[in-house]
């Protein structure tokens, strides 16, 4: 027992150090949001002398501010809900039939390949395509997210389904369930942790994504999402940190709320493709 104490001490010192590394930048983000530009210019890292809420007022005064919020929510929620149902289904097909049919095996590899594709080269072709199809808008970007989410989703799900015993499904079939019923009654609930994982990862990705909205939603400021608005505080030669950081609050807070709500599920959920019973 005596030996264990130093290990504990070292561990806590190490973790405290990590905690400072994480918390300090977050402190800066909060502090800056409540300071005036002049105060920030004088000392970037100090705690605000007076809590200044003018930044938030200015951020919200933008004519399209509520459009950005609405767009961000709509796009994230719809894409995440659609992928949260589509990916489990298609992955189930692949997982159950990839050993039997070449089609499903190829499908798996083709989907997973996109996980690794450098997005930069798709930028111009995608813009050209969406312009031709009239999809330079929220509907277009939702469809693209649904397509792009397939790679990681299928990769995670197919591995996970292998761990769900086929016997359960067979029993359900004997009870008279159709394939669709079996899936939604038996498999889908069992896969809930994985679904949560994919939902969380996709939410974080889509909510904070910048390049794709930049390309697809630039036609009118009323189409923008929050990250586009946030980047807009950067001109080529200066950055309005105070306004930018105040605007970050609007995107950080919903994610924190999501984290608090899904905390348990994140741990359960990210059990991921790993569960091998």
């Amino acid at each position, binding site marked *: 027992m005596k030996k264990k104490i130093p290990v*504990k001490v070292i*561990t806590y010192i190490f973790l405290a150090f990590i905690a400072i*590394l*994480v*918390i*300090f*930048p977050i402190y*800066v*983000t909060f502090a800056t949001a409540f300071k005036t530009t002049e105060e920030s210019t004088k000392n*970037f*890292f100090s705690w605000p002398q007076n809590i200044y809420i003018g930044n938030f007022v200015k951020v919200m005064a933008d004519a399209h501010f509520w459009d950005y919020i609405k767009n961000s929510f709509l796009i994230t929620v719809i894409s995440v809900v659609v992928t949260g149902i*589509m990916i489990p289904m*298609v992955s*189930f097909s*692949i997982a159950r*039939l990839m050993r039997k*049919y070449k*089609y*499903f095996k190829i499908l798996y*590899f083709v989907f997973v*390949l*996109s*996980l*690794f*594709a*450098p*997005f*930069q*080269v798709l*930028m*111009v*072709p*995608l813009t050209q*395509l969406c312009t031709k199809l009239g999809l330079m808008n929220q509907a277009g970007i939702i469809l693209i997210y649904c*397509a*792009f989410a397939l790679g990681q989703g299928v990769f995670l799900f197919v*591995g996970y389904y292998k761990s769900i015993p086929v016997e359960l499904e067979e029993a359900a*079939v004997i009870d008279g369930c*159709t*394939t669709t019923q079996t899936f939604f009654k038996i498999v889908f609930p069992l896969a809930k942790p994985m679904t949560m994982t994919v939902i969380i*990862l996709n939410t974080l990705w889509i909510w*904070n994504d*910048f*390049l794709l909205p930049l390309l697809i939603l630039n036609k009118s400021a009323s189409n923008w999402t929050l*990250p586009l608005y946030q980047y807009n505080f950067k001109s080529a030669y200066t950055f309005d*940190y105070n306004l*930018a*950081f105040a605007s*970050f609050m609007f995107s*950080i807070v919903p994610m924190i709320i*999501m984290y608090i709500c899904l*905390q348990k599920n*994140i*741990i*359960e959920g*990210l*059990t*991921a*493709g*790993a569960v091998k019973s």
Partner: protein
Amino acid sequence: MKTKNKMTRKEKILLSWTIIPLALYTLFFIVPVAMGINYSFTDWNGLTQTYNYNGIANFISLFTSKRILNSLAFTGKYTFFLVIIIMFLAMLFTILLTYVVSTRLRTFFRSVIFFPVVLSLVTVGLVWNQIMYRVLPQLGQMLGIGWLSSNILGDPKTAMWGVIFVNVWQGVAVPFVILLAGIQNVPTDLYEAAKIDGATPFKLFTKITIPFLIPTINVAFVMVLKSGITVFDYIQAMTAGGPMRSTESAGVLIYELAFTDSKAGQASAYAFLLLIIIALISVLQMKVSSKVEVGQL
């Protein structure tokens, strides 16, 4: 057609579930990729409506351009260190939080380590840029550490580490949580049995924990590997490829070639080459992992 006739009703339904995803995927991924591959055989500058086919000239130019070869080497180096550091730290955090930290503090530290991932990259980039410019150099001067006395992002020798640091800061969260969840599934009765047999904690870890964790490690590994090979936004946010192009990754260079240098043809060829390299790595990785998994079962 042959297979279709043989299919059972259940299999047909399952087949129908793949139609929409495949259609979406074809339209928004395969078609753009095909367009890109087409451009890679042209002299397209990324702007005009017309272009000329120039055979494999772009592909040849990939291997003669020092800048492109440098970026490939950089990407390799970056990915190597990123994967090692993230996997090590994620593993370390997992072990500490599972075996050392008391239950009360566990939730707190778990939240702390996970938190950076909810921040958008623009936030992360801005804050860390300022810290590396204003805080770290002061610390370096105080401690008399030469390389830390000025912004590490400004020196080609240290810039990569600055970017990796920020990437790890945010990127360790997801692999960590994946591993943390995985380790909870290691059956405890095995530990008990082994302890009775007199196994040391180290032996317990290597003989029981690690083998059970391998599929989880695998998932985490692939995700970190992907983020390393396709790294773009961390570099764009921290150094934009500088100083003196010393941190230009494949992703950054493809973007530069396409949008700044008016060499969309060459950019597409580079991306195509990268895709082939990645495809080879992933096939290899899957082969290896499926062998390990089979061994597990």
